[in-house]
């Protein structure tokens, strides 16, 4: 049976939620952007009046001010946006339990089973759109189709506050004339290659010889061919499905540039504490530690190394990160942002080969200490107990990495490749 899949995208989500809470800004340009004082100075989302004047996501705040002098910047309130995101999911849940978020502001909904009594996809989309507007005071664009890829293209097709149905009758008119770069997983590199073979639109991709695509792009070539023809079989995941965690990391842009090892040590410890706490919360240990460093001219790199024994101990992760840092950075430039990540996760209870030259007793004590700190923080707040190191620089150590960590869209293939490509000839 043909599926009915909706892709709902909250238009200019952060900005729309802010606009709702600031009725006096109606019709005026507004952008949600990092706090310029804390130097996270880019536009996260602009509202439509600002977009019309050329403000784009990712612009530095000063650039936005140049194209739109009257623009008002507001600092992001992530908790508020997550609340609205949750409310939207509650509305979606009235129509299906197959809802899969893609970032905070987008969701796929498989409403096939609701069509028998709620009406067809368009009807359900209209109802959802109306309810979101009435109950949340923001607008959505919804794409309706028989597969996830076309549903997403549909929600991008007309914005804001619009519904686009892409069915077997009209998909060649709508989808096939779109530039190939609109397709998920056609990035700059793939687009360039496709251009070389004269493939500019999704239609041209759909009609290209799949064996040529496979020769040039590997399996991804076949998958893209399938996407372009609407043959993607990837199911919409259940709402409570949690993808297995593969790594846990945190990064931060620091309140001021870091200029020496001591500065870096403070930040690395803040991040390591957050990472290690989350490892312990989720009953993981890591076998690889990775750091990423970005200097004040925005060139960045990352380095990783295996560690002796699987660990969730804050100081071990921090010291591994510091060692990596010492080996790789030579202080040619001050540093703007740093990240620490724990990879190659294993179950915390995995048996390990003890090492004669590492005191397991000491490690046990460190672990107990971390658990005690977790407990104290749980009861009395994050800042109730601190390392002495943090008092070296109150400004730097004020970064609360754990609670500040942001939400990223997950990859389309995070749950494995379920496109159905393997059934092709």
């Amino acid at each position, binding site marked *: 049976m043909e599926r009915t899949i909706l892709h709902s995208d909250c238009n200019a989500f952060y900005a729309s939620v802010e606009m709702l*809470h600031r009725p006096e800004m109606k019709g005026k340009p507004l952008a949600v952007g990092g706090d310029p004082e804390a130097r996270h100075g880019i536009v996260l989302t602009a509202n439509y009046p600002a977009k019309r004047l050329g403000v784009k996501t990712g612009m530095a705040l000063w650039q936005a001010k140049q194209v739109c002098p009257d623009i008002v910047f507001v600092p992001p309130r992530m908790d508020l946006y997550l609340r609205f995101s949750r409310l939207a999911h509650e509305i979606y849940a009235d129509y299906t339990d197959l809802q899969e978020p893609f970032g905070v502001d987008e969701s796929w909904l498989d409403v096939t089973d609701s069509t028998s009594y709620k009406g067809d996809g368009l009807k359900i989309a209209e109802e959802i759109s109306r309810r979101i507007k009435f109950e949340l*005071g923001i607008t959505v664009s919804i794409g309706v189709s028989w597969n996830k890829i076309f549903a997403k293209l549909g929600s991008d097709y007309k914005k804001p506050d619009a519904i686009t149905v892409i069915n077997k009758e009209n998909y060649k008119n709508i989808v096939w004339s779109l530039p190939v770069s609109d397709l998920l997983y056609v990035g700059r590199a793939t687009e360039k290659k496709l251009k070389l073979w004269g493939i500019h639109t999704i239609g041209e991709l759909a009609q290209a010889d799949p064996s040529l695509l496979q020769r040039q792009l590997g399996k991804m070539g076949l998958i893209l061919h399938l996407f372009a023809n609407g043959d993607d079989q990837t199911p919409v995941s259940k709402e409570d499905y949690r993808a297995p965690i593969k790594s846990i990391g945190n990064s931060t842009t620091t309140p001021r540039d870091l200029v020496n090892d001591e500065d870096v040590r403070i930040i690395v410890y803040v991040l390591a504490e957050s990472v290690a706490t989350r490892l312990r919360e989720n009953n993981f240990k890591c076998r690889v530690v990775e750091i990423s460093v970005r200097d004040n001219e925005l060139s960045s790199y990352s380095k990783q190394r295996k560690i002796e024994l699987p660990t969730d101990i804050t100081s071990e992760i921090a010291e591994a990160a510091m060692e990596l840092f010492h080996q790789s950075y030579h202080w040619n430039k001050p540093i703007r942002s740093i990240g620490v990540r724990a990879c190659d996760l294993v179950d915390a209870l995995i048996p390990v080969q003890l090492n004669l030259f590492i005191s397991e007793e000491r490690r046990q004590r460190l672990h107990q200490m971390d658990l005690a700190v977790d407990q104290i923080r749980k009861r009395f707040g994050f800042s109730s107990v601190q390392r002495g190191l943090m008092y070296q620089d109150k400004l730097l150590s004020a970064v609360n990495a754990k609670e500040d960590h942001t939400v990223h869209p997950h990859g389309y293939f995070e749950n494995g490749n379920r496109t159905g490509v393997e059934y092709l000839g």
Partner: protein
Amino acid sequence: MDKAKIYVKVEAEFTTDGTLRPQCIIWEDGRRFEIDKITDCRRAASLKAGGAGLRYTCMISGSPHYLFYEENYKWFVEDK
């Protein structure tokens, strides 16, 4: 700018079946407005005041007024 969103003090009752029923709105200056009846309660946004939450339609001295219970556990009314 005149403020269209007014947070107010509210006296409310939790019934045994778990329903939250506002009973009285207390204005900044201490004036009390008894809610005679709640005619409707639904999720709604207030474009006028700027916010969203549970919207109670309250009958106060014979005329209907919207009272919103925001997701942050604050109550607000729209300024007339």
